[in-house]
């Protein structure tokens, strides 16, 4: 099968575009899409110092690779949650990648910082939720210590559309208001905005881009992922996409149109509280991060 744009051999069929593309045209489209997402949502600026959350998987290494070739000022940051057989396996991939592309790399472990690992938490069913709070919290704190003014993560189109539906199904509209291409409803000196430059890239295309560009990543799955509600949503979305190509893009684009309304509606009327323990923004007296640390630390 030939590329729809030239005579070279196609490496991908993009049903939502009705096109087959060769390696070169696919890479160009992929990079253009990422540049477009960064520009249209004003995610990043060349003056920014960006902490890139890196797990060693395809998404975060593709993101790191692209921000490197786009010449942003980046530092790779890894949070080691202490998941045996998963995180320890991914670290050599990050080390090798950062050495190859001369990217500074910082690693922070939950064990060293707070004295416990994710493996030691008994409630396995809520693991993804604890892990999310801990990783986001620690990444924010460390990015600030490193003098960064943005945090970039490798969330892809599949992650984003799953997150949108999960929050809709659970009635978490206020939480949805805080998401989007640049997170947060309010600006606060302690909060580092998080951006997601790959949010318009389907997961499958991240794999393809990584393979074509010889990005060596770990494809080990997190052992706790099987507990996630997300899996049910993922399956449903993939079935919809197969039957109605373009569904995921439509969900994301329409959600993006709703963000300004959600943010206006849920914009806090008063200044946020400060966490009594760490001083970060909090809804009550203690922030979610410190609450979780307090439970297990």
């Amino acid at each position, binding site marked *: 099968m030939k590329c729809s744009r030239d005579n070279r051999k196609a490496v991908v069929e993009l049903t939502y575009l009705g096109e087959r593309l060769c390696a070169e045209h696919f890479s160009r489209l992929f990079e253009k899409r990422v540049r477009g997402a960064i520009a249209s949502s004003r995610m990043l600026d060349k003056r920014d110092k960006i902490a890139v959350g890196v797990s060693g998987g395809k998404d975060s290494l593709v993101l790191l690779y692209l921000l490197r070739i786009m010449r942003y000022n980046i530092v790779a940051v890894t949070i080691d949650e202490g998941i045996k057989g998963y995180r320890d396996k991914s670290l050599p991939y990050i080390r090798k990648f950062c050495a190859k592309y001369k990217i500074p790399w910082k690693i922070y472990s939950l064990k060293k910082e707070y004295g416990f690992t994710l493996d030691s938490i008994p409630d396995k069913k809520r693991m993804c939720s604890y892990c999310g709070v801990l990783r986001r919290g620690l990444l924010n704190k460390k990015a600030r210590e490193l003098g960064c003014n943005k945090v970039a993560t490798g969330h892809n189109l599949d992650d984003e559309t799953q997150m949108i539906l999960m929050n809709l199904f659970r009635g978490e509209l206020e939480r949805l208001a805080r998401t989007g291409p640049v997170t947060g409803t309010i600006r606060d000196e302690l909060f580092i905005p998080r951006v997601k430059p790959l949010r318009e890239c389907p997961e499958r295309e991240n794999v393809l881009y990584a393979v074509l560009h010889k990005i060596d990543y770990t494809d080990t799955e997190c052992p706790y992922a099987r507990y996630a509600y997300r899996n049910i949503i993922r399956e449903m979305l*993939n079935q919809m996409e197969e039957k109605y190509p373009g569904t995921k893009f439509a969900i994301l684009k329409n959600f993006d149109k709703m963000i300004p309304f959600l943010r206006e509606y849920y914009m806090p009327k008063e200044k946020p509280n400060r966490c009594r323990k760490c001083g970060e923004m909090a809804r009550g007296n203690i922030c979610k991060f410190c609450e979780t640390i307090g439970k297990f630390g």
Partner: protein
Amino acid sequence: MKILVESRDFKTRVVLKGNTVKELMRQINLSPENFVISRNGEIVLEDERLVDKDKIRLFPVISGG
């Protein structure tokens, strides 16, 4: 024809009854949708015809956390 198939979790030799990637995937009960597939190091689509001793590598789409 004999095809070597490798992925994250396995490495196996398959005696292929058909002659395309699609037929190979059907024979080993895997959905092509869930993988990016290479043949002898080059990315291929499902309709690619295979020849004896080809090496197929499957890159799972879903990975990570």
